């Protein structure tokens, strides 16, 4: 009996040792990738990985080289090989689980990003749910990832942080996670729209430390416009106002800022939009598909630069109407551009029709790409002003002449 216990203890302790701690990775044997950029170089992928230099980023510790990130770029037939090839450049194994951003160059986006997505989805280290996707407008992903940023040392974390704030306070950017991209690609009747990022300033200077030493850096990154896709190919860009319209339709607006013209001519007012809800419904009218977009928005008055008596309920009503019209206008602009210029159903109207009128959908499904530009869309927005701020009438009253 004692013998048996003794033998089993020996065996258990051996088995502990024999595992040799498989799949163990010490922290200082890893290179954390914060962003991955994908470009094409001929028929091969050119993959850039932004690696964090921990000793530079961590508080109170300074190394000697003084850039918080380093960029490894390799070229190979597949992305996987390219990532593995980085061992020829990096002293440590590249660790992808903490990726924040994936950036596609505009060139590869125009060719199609579909094939590149498979590796990102299949690799067990990469978490699609927490990985924002961006398109480098007019640039390669490699150059975009090189730009150093102020305030947040790691550019990828900067992008991630900005996107989160943008998503909450500024509607014109479409924040899309990698999992959403994949979902939209799989969804038959919806096309992609992804936020764009661009380098402002002198591209060549962005990767030096000098860039971030200035109060007003010569080169910086800015989110701009939204890339419109047809299937997995980039076909064009929406500008700021159109992006906002797009986001209203897809119900991606949380909070935003807007302005309108005061009812009695002259002067503007600004609205702090605090809550919006969009309902898109589809129906068949005279054998033709019809889409209704109903936006319910709430906001506070943020700024009054005209002569209006806010103490009168009537003026509030006027402002509400004006704000609602403004929202409709923004939406219509976006609709116009997408329906008639890009002809790509990024709103998922096809999906709406599929859901609301399944029988009719079967008939129009095949020709949907041709029908989409002709679909009549009825926009209806309803705006409610909840609060007028910490003041009644404006201190500034234009003198009456």
């Amino acid at each position: 009996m004692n013998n048996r216990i003794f033998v089993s203890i020996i065996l258990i302790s051996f088995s502990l040792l024999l595992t040799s701690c498989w799949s163990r990775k010490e922290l200082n044997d890893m290179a954390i990738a914060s962003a991955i950029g994908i470009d094409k170089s001929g028929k091969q992928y050119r993959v850039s990985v932004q690696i964090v230099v921990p000793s530079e980023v961590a508080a109170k510790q300074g190394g000697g080289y003084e850039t918080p990130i380093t960029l490894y770029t390799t070229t190979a037939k597949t992305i996987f090989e390219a990532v593995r090839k980085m061992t020829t450049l990096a002293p440590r194994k590249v660790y992808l689980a903490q990726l924040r951003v994936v950036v596609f160059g505009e060139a590869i986006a125009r060719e199609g990003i579909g094939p590149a997505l498979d590796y990102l989805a299949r690799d067990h280290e990469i978490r699609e749910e927490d990985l924002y996707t961006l398109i480098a407008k007019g640039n390669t992903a490699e150059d975009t990832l090189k730009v150093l940023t102020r305030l947040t040392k790691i550019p990828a974390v900067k992008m991630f942080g900005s996107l989160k704030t943008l998503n909450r306070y500024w509607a014109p950017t479409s924040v899309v996670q990698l999992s959403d991209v994949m979902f939209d690609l799989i969804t038959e009747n919806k096309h992609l729209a992804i936020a764009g990022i661009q380098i402002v300033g002198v591209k060549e200077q962005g990767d030096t430390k000098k860039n971030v030493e200035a109060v007003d850096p010569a080169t910086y990154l800015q989110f701009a416009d939204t890339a419109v896709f047809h299937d997995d190919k980039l076909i064009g860009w929406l500008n700021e106002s159109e992006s906002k319209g797009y986001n209203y339709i897809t119900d991606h607006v949380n909070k935003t800022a807007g302005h309108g013209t005061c009812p009695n001519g002259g002067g503007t007012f600004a609205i702090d939009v605090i809550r919006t809800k969009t309902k898109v419904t589809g129906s068949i009218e005279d054998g033709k598909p019809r889409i209704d977009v109903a936006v319910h928005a709430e906001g506070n008055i943020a700024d009054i630069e005209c002569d209006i008596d806010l103490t009168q309920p009537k003026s509030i009503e006027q402002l509400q109407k004006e704000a609602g019209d403004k929202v409709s206008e923004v939406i219509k602009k976006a609709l116009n551009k997408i329906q008639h210029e890009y002809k790509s159903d990024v709103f998922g109207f096809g999906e709406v029709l599929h859901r609301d009128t399944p029988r009719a959908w079967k008939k129009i499904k095949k020709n949907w790409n041709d029908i989409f530009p002709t679909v009549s869309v009825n926009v209806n927005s309803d705006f409610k002003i909840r609060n007028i701020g910490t003041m009644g009438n404006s201190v500034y009253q234009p003198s009456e002449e």
Partner: protein
Amino acid sequence: MKSKDQRSNKPLELNLQTNISYIREILGNSSDIVIREIRIGNNVDVGIIFTDGLVDSAAISKFIMETLMMDFPQVESQDLDLLPLLKNKVLTVGGIKYVAEFDAVFDAILSGDAIVLFDGYSQGFNICVRGWETRSVTEATTETIIRGPKESFNENLRTNTAMVRRRIKDPRLWMESRQIGTLTKTNVEIMFINGIADDKVVDELRKRLDRINIDGILESGYIEQMIQDETLTPFPTIYNTERPDVVAADLMEGRIAIFVDGTPFVLLLPVVFIQFFQAAEDYYQRSDIGTLLRILRFICFFIALAGPSLYIAITTFHQEMIPTDMLINLMAQREGVPFPAFVEAFLMEVTFEILREAGIRMPRAIGQAVSIVGTLVVGTAAVDAGMVSAAMVIVVSITAISNFVFPSTNMAIPIRILRFPLMALAASFGLLGIFVGVIALLLHLCSLRSFGVPYMSPMSPLSLGDLKDTLIRVPTWAMSKRPHFIGQKNNIRARTPKPKPPKSRE
């Protein structure tokens, strides 16, 4: 326990000198045995024998010598036998009884009683004049509290039982005494409340105590190790305390206390796991803070048990679980640390254990030096030297401090031991290893028994009514029943209704 030695089990002789020389011979003429020979009344030779240091010298000279030598001659003594006369009319002492055998004589002398022998009589007196130096009743050192009684037991058995008796003034508080240890003949008393304590458990305890055959009992730990249910476990299945209020409370819950002469630590049984998380103060403070402290202790239990192993598992296997910024910071700290996280943690833990052990054993005078050096070793110096990362120092420190949260050091010990195997599991298998380890631990805990009571009661087997005093501590008026799992006799503890203000008359 009777000594089986035939040597002293013989009756007293008539001749005083024979008796005295026999006593001298058996006790090896020990220098602390005082033999005083006097002559009283009608020229009867008397020998007073006692152990110096164990008796109250004032009592001997005042109540024995003075009465015998000065008061006795005035008593008319012809009509009575000498001994009953002395016992009934002369000696002004409380505890007095006859002795007729050497066995009893030696027991009495060595326990601090005085023996009075008379020439021409084969009987003598055993007079209780015990009185030796004891530590006074002081504040509890191991279980300190803010609100509540401060006194603690000392090394004197009678003082200790009296402290409990003072708290429970009920005729049902019973005590049973026995002597254990062939050499030490240590007085051991079991105390329980008849009618509340489970008779079966009391019987079982008697049996287990009678089974003990050992030369000496110097501390209640000896008894604990010889009567516990399961020996192959790091967990204590018998509670010990030096607080009389804790003993009183546990007696009222149906537990049994074992007092051992010579130690302030009293054993309590049967115990359950949860009891080691219950501090006396939980009941003295109001229930809300009592509950919060309970929860805090459970959190500390897990930190103390699995703190370093979680750190090892997450930083070497599951880096994706760490927020990016923190991961970068951790990496920056580990930059240049030559050891794997497990070795790093092990180094720090061992260092801490060394410091702790040294802190307890070293002479008080050099305590200052050790704590200064210790702070440097565990603190910044180790980090600056690049031996360990700063985060590891935090983990080890919080683990160490969590380990001190338990009201009973008994529970701190198994956690301290089990931390190391868990660290090895974490280093080999990551979180999976930790969970397997914790599950194994849980199974082990569920298999334990303390005098027949499942160790994990009232959680497993579940007893809903008794959960009132586990993770939460309900108000005192709501704890109306005694714990069911200890004994089913006389279960009602209180019938106080919930306090509320009188209804307004207006």
